[in-house]
């Protein structure tokens, strides 16, 4: 019987023929925690009687969610993480390195065929590198750090076949928002997803990360793609490691196959307060915004900043709008500086913040005021997400956010192309 990508990876890592529905204990290749989840994992590690991590070069902590620390409580937790990583002898990526989901792929430690667990729900991002990576909680993270193992229920898979060519001004973010709106926020719960088709093949590696990043917003365990020349070209910038890519068998069994033609897709927005409350930008155009955010693990990469600068360059943002830009990593920040992108963004009126999560999760760097409206390139618009439950959050592509920052209203970016 043919197998899906996730069935193959879980078979290889558990040493048994695994199919959807089976429960396996699998070896993990890499384990990651961030500053919102690692402190509790350290406590669980101690409660479990842990004394050492299973492999020092396969564990990392990233300080990105509240970085630099905005208050003493967070500072104490950061200190706890630094001391723990130091004592155990594994890598800690400190403030300014970037968002964990950009830092990990750039570290060269993850790639095709790997199994990664991260104590962060968007760990599914590396599915775009043909890895099974998934989010877990702090106790699972602690178990993984000690044993190098984790139990999994092998999930069924939904396959998304995306054909056609994305029109100008329409990006992978618009496509994934459209898919989430279609299958809904729990349409893939307990399942894996695979993205295939010419629209996916045509995407840059950076654009693909955006798609896999948001698999969790339909409840999925993973958002997998096959590796191609673009995947390997991207990886070669960061590592000399050899990887064995994993493909789905032609007779693999899928729970569902959904087909989309992207040729007529318009720019999309997710409206408050649900990620699956999706509509074409044209339907929300004209809504006044107060803050615009470009960054996060969804859309803070070089290509995203380049697209934003293409619209903002030589123009000024609306006087009633704050534009916050958080590059996804130090590497992205440096590359964007070298290209002159940062200059263009700052001249347009952007406030640059430290590479990391920025204002995404409401701990610092731009908490909105009561009843304000934010448009962001992030992946979640839940009520209270950015630290104020009376604020409204719209999600869109970097182009749509940039165009909206210029006009002060939700704006179709195609007006500025």
């Amino acid at each position: 019987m043919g197998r899906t990508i996730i069935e193959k990876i879980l078979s290889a890592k558990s040493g048994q023929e695994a199919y959807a529905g089976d429960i396996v204990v699998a070896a993990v290749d890499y384990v990651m925690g961030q500053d919102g989840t690692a402190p509790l994992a350290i406590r669980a590690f101690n409660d479990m009687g842990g004394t050492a991590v299973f492999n020092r070069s396969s564990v990392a902590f990233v300080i990105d969610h509240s970085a630099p620390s905005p208050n003493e409580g967070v500072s104490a937790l950061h200190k706890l993480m630094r001391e723990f990583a130091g004592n155990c002898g594994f890598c800690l990526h400190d403030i300014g390195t970037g968002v964990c989901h950009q830092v990990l792929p750039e570290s060269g430690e993850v790639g095709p065929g790997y199994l990664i667990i991260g104590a962060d729900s968007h760990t599914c991002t590396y599915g775009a590198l043909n890895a099974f990576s998934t989010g877990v909680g702090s106790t699972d993270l602690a178990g993984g750090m000690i044993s190098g193992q984790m139990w999994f229920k092998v999930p069924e898979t939904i396959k998304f076949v995306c054909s056609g060519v994305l029109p100008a001004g329409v990006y992978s973010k618009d496509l994934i928002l459209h898919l989430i709106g279609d299958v809904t926020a729990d349409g893939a719960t307990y399942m894996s997803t695979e993205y295939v088709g010419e629209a996916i093949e045509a995407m840059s590696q950076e654009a693909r990360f955006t798609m896999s990043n948001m698999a969790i917003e339909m409840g999925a365990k993973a958002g997998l793609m096959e590796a191609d020349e673009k995947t390997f070209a991207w990886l070669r910038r960061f590592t000399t490691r050899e990887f064995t890519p994993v493909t789905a068998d032609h007779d693999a069994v899928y729970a569902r196959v959904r087909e989309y033609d992207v040729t007529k897709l318009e720019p999309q927005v997710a409206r408050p307060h649900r990620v699956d409350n999706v509509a074409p930008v044209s339907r929300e155009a004209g809504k006044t915004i107060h803050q615009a955010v470009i960054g996060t693990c969804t859309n803070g990469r070089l290509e995203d900043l380049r697209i934003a600068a293409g619209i903002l360059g030589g123009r000024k943002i609306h006087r009633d709008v704050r534009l916050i830009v958080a590059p996804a990593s130090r590497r992205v920040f440096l590359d964007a500086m070298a290209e002159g992108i940062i200059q263009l963004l700052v001249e347009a009126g952007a406030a640059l913040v430290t590479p990391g999560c920025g204002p995404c999760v409401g701990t610092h760097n731009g908490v909105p005021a009561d009843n304000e409206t934010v448009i962001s390139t992030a992946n979640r618009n839940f009520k209270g997400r950015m630290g104020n439950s009376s604020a409204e959050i719209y999600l869109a592509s970097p182009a749509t956010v940039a165009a909206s920052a210029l006009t002060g209203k939700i704006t179709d970016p195609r007006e500025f192309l």
Partner: protein
Amino acid sequence: MQFNGRAHKFGDDVNTDYIISGKYKFKTLDMKKLAKHVMEDLDPHFYEKVAAGDFIVAGTNFGCGSSREQAPLAIKYAGVGAVLAKSFARIFYRNAINTGLPVVECDTDQLEQGDELYVDLTAGVITNRTKGITIPAKPLPTVMIKILNDGGLAPHFKKHGGFNL
């Protein structure tokens, strides 16, 4: 495992930001402090209303969103005995079992705010004493019962020195 308590009813897609807002969870590891803010964006007085052993009763996709384990912990430290929902988001579900918070998948349409419930997890039966009806609950997979019986994944690891599933 049996529990007695009242139902506190919520809707579909209760996400982890509603359960415990990110603005609190980053500040402390003191779960008793966090518990005071549990569900506050949906019901500002939830913490004062809930009595030890009471149930959170919800619709589909309970606990969607972030991987924060503070979500099941804050619920547990607020005194909630179990969460009953039509379905759960998978990371929340794992986290709940790992931290020893019972989660029950069942049809919650006939459970209303304030109903007196008796939940027998072992038998997989929920009795609504207010309405005089019983509702079947989906049995937990063996792996999860083993972890729950040990009190969570940390005590499980301590007891067995690793996974013993």
